[in-house]
């Protein structure tokens, strides 16, 4: 048996500026990383330039800002793009970032046919979980289809779409739901491509063969192995039955993986290392269901941004697994295992039944509200089980005693701080770039972009022209926004069933809390009404949705408006709705900018007596800062006890009354 080739090893990274990220990439490559995984900042992901009002405080925070082709040049300076395998986590404006990548390569003297890599380009999971969508479903699917038809003909080694089950698991999906809804997304995309009539039969088969997946792997790694085997079998079926692909090569289930972040803990964060190792086993042990590419999170992700050393530790895990262990030396070690086969069959059958249910509803786009409600319900159940202790998380709800950790002492020294100067730098560079470009070229390029959109032509050639002409990310996206309009995805919380039969201690505590909430109405004069707000561009809404559902279940009246609200919108809602308390959820690291703006706004509206609580990934010294500014409480991932948070909220509202 010949040894299997190791997977592509990457680390999801990027921050501050293109230059700082380029230095990080070259450092990572020098340590033996074999591919790149670009994290873009939220303004780039949602199609805004770094100097847009909505970008304030978000530039360079969760990734690198890319406004134009010169930023892209800098990002890949001294990295020959014909030899690199680059994965880009980009969705709403995926066509644009790919156009910039192609243009940057051409400026390096590399033609598109030599490029290898992946654009994530999966809009459905953005609606369901990740939140960086821009346009409504129909035009979004058209853009995805344009990227596929363009790359199949012109960038043949590119993976135009990475259908993501990853973010579904982060949003609470069970293995069955993860498999089912990702397949539904792949079907929606391939149906669009097929019906576009842009591809010959052979080209369409090639397009099916270029579909890849981006999956999640949790700590229950045996179930994960079975999930991936089931996933592969179902994909083989779909490609053969639905799309008539005969050649098994084009039916192969190709996937990359980032292992689970949802299960990483802030308490005793060193325990995350064994979790990450076990999760990596789930996607490597079974040769028939082994990943093509892997990126591992850092042990301290729940605390803040990882430092280069933290990322190195994660890369070393991959290298030890591939080069020290014998995992690559055998055929599939689960072949013939009745246990694995049985579990695989269960997931496959249940998964397919769910695919059929969604298909009956008219496909995943029509069923978006239903699917979102299913995910919120699953996540609610998960949180409930952790709260009840039925779902053990070591160091969090069991075995919580700990000696002091030499790695992390509870201050924020164990994380990376983004240089606050980076935003000013980036904006200055953007302004200089705008003055240096030839305005006539920009206008001509934008005109052909508009024509391509309106005449239903493929958007890629005009986008590449825009990239070369010096069009910015904000300009490209605004052109499409003007034609396509924008979209607000369903929040899924209304359909999350109330907790009817919470048993045991948590059930009793919830009942007691309901009584308290009812009594609080006497003190306040009316039922306790709270606003749960998600300010800024951060789309990770799980936390806010859970808090909203739990508040409802505790008897509160809850105003929840979904993601991406400006501080002004939140203040207006708090005023109009007459709420007793405002809860904010921010995971993008922009809390120091957004929260004080909201506090000031509330004061200006005469709402000084409305207390504010904040939850998110907030390092302790930032939390102290926020409390100084007037925030009543700050919650971080270690505060997993929902009822504790809720009962705090009742106390705080009563005190303020």
């Amino acid at each position: 048996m010949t040894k299997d080739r190791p997977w592509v090893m990457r680390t999801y990274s990027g921050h501050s500026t293109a230059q700082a990220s380029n230095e990080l990439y070259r450092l990572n490559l020098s340590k033996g990383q074999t591919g790149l995984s670009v994290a873009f900042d939220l303004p780039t992901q949602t199609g805004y330039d770094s100097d847009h009002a909505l970008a304030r405080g978000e530039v360079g925070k969760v990734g690198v800002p890319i406004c134009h082709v010169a930023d892209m040049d800098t990002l890949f300076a001294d990295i020959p793009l014909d030899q690199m395998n680059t994965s880009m986590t980009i969705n709403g404006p995926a066509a644009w970032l790919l156009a910039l990548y192609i243009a940057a390569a051409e400026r390096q003297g590399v033609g598109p046919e030599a490029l290898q890599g992946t654009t994530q380009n999966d809009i459905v999971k953005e609606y369901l979980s990740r939140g960086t969508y821009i346009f409504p479903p129909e035009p979004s699917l058209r853009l995805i289809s344009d990227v596929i038809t363009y790359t199949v003909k012109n960038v043949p080694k590119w993976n135009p779409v990475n259908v993501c089950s990853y973010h579904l698991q982060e949003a609470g999906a069970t293995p069955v739901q993860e498999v089912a809804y990702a397949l539904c997304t792949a079907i929606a995309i391939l149906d669009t491509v097929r019906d576009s009539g842009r591809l010959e039969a052979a080209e369409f088969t090639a397009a099916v063969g270029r579909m890849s997946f981006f999956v999640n792997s949790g700590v229950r790694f045996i179930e994960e192995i079975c999930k991936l085997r089931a996933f592969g079998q179902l994909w083989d079926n779909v490609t053969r039955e639905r799309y008539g692909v005969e050649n098994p090569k084009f039916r192969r289930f190709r996937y990359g993986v980032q292992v689970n972040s949802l299960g990483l803990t802030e308490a005793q964060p060193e325990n995350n290392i064994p979790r990450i190792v076990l999760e990596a086993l789930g996607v490597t042990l079974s040769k028939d269901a082994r990943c093509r590419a892997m990126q591992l999170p850092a042990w301290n992700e729940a605390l803040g941004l990882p430092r280069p050393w933290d990322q190195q530790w994660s890369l070393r895990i991959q290298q030890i697994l591939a080069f020290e262990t014998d995992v690559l030396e055998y055929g599939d070690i689960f072949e013939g295992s009745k246990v694995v086969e049985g579990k695989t069959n269960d997931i496959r059958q249940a998964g397919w039944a769910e695919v059929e249910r969604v298909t009956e509803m008219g496909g995943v786009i029509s069923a978006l509200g239903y699917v979102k409600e299913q995910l919120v319900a699953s996540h609610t159940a998960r949180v409930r089980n952790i709260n009840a202790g039925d779902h053990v998380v070591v160091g969090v709800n069991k075995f919580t005693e700990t000696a002091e950790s030499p790695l992390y002492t509870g201050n924020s020294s164990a994380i990376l701080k983004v240089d606050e100067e980076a935003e000013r730098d980036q904006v200055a560079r953007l302004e200089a770039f705008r003055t240096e470009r030839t305005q006539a070229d920009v206008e001509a390029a934008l005109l052909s972009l508009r024509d391509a959109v309106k005449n239903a032509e493929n958007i890629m050639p005009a986008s590449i022209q825009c990239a070369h002409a010096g069009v910015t990310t904000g300009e490209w996206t605004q052109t499409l926004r003007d034609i396509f309009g924008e979209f607000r995805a369903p929040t899924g919380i209304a359909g999350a069933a109330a907790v009817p039969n919470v048993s045991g201690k948590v059930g009793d505590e919830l009942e007691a809390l309901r009584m308290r909430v009812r009594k609080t109405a006497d003190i306040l004069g009316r039922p306790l009404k709270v606003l749960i707000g998600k300010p800024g561009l951060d789309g990770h809404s799980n936390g806010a949705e859970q808090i909203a559902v739990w508040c409802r279940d505790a008897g509160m009246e809850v105003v929840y408006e979904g993601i991406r609200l400006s501080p002004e919108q939140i203040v207006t809602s708090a005023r109009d709705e007459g709420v007793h308390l405002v809860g904010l959820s921010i995971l993008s690291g922009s809390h120091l900018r957004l929260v004080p703006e909201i506090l000031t706004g509330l004061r200006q509206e005469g709402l000084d007596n409305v207390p504010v609580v904040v939850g998110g990934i907030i390092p302790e010294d930032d939390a102290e800062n926020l409390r100084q500014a007037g925030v009543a409480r700050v919650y971080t991932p270690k505060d997993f006890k929902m009822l504790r948070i809720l009962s705090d909220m009742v106390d705080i509202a009563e005190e303020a009354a």
Partner: protein
Amino acid sequence: MKEKALQIDVSALVNFNRQAIALALNLLEDRRPRLQAQALTLLDELSTLPAPAHVVGITGPPGVGKSSLIARLIARQAQISRRVAVVAVDPSSKVSGGALLGDRGRMQISLQAEVYARSFAARDRLGGLSREAFSAVFLLRHCCDVVLVETVGVGQSETDIASLADTTVLVVQPFSGDVLQFLKAGVMEIPDILAVNKADDQALAQQAVSDVQTALALERGSFDQGSLEGSWQNPVLAVSAATNLNIDTLDDAMTAHYQHLQSTHKLENKRADQAMAWAVGEILHEVGQRGLAILGGVEGVRSLWGEQTQQWSAIRKLATLLDRVRYRA
């Protein structure tokens, strides 16, 4: 609430000062006796002032796109410089008593527009309008140009909204057979305007509209709606919130109905009748048939209602009648 919240400036209120409106609505919801007394005084004061706003009830089954339609209507009002208040009602959980109020997000309210929006939980009214929501609309009639009231569901909420709105708009989807059955069977009152939303496809929309018209014609045949409503011909409109199709037509129809009520001098009577009908409903809800009987039934309420001080608001009149039952005065 601190004392500060109790200072409500009526002139700010009727000039659409949204801070003042919010405080006044907080007060109307407040159950503490001292504040309830203050709320009644405020409402009495308002009831001596003009109530110029056109109250439009927007109702229909879940999922027909009422919130998106309201979003479009809000944008249209802003365009023609009208001040809008929106009252959205969501159901309360029977298990916990809590509620998720999510309509606001779907309405995409621009910060530039002169809009005030407030969400209400139905509380014990199963999707219908709570007393708080009714008082809120009563107050908002004095503060702006248009009040849009959104309720979910078919059944209780229509009856409620008909006792509150000057104009009722029923929103349905193409070929929503169940709603048409309700109309045909007379379970549901015929709305002043019927909007068939999601009419993105022209041919389909036309078919859907004639489908509804047929149902209405059948209903009219058995019950001469025309003679009751004067010359108002309940229009059936194909609209699309998604593509902004015929939103101005819908808005024009709403305005036309309001003008119709005014020019035929029906508005004042309609509002007075509504207040009475609402009071009877509230009495039944609060003290049941026996309570109503104490007041001499519907007829008794009608005559007691007329005997009360003219300067009183409907809410105080109701409160007084309920006191009579409770204390057998």
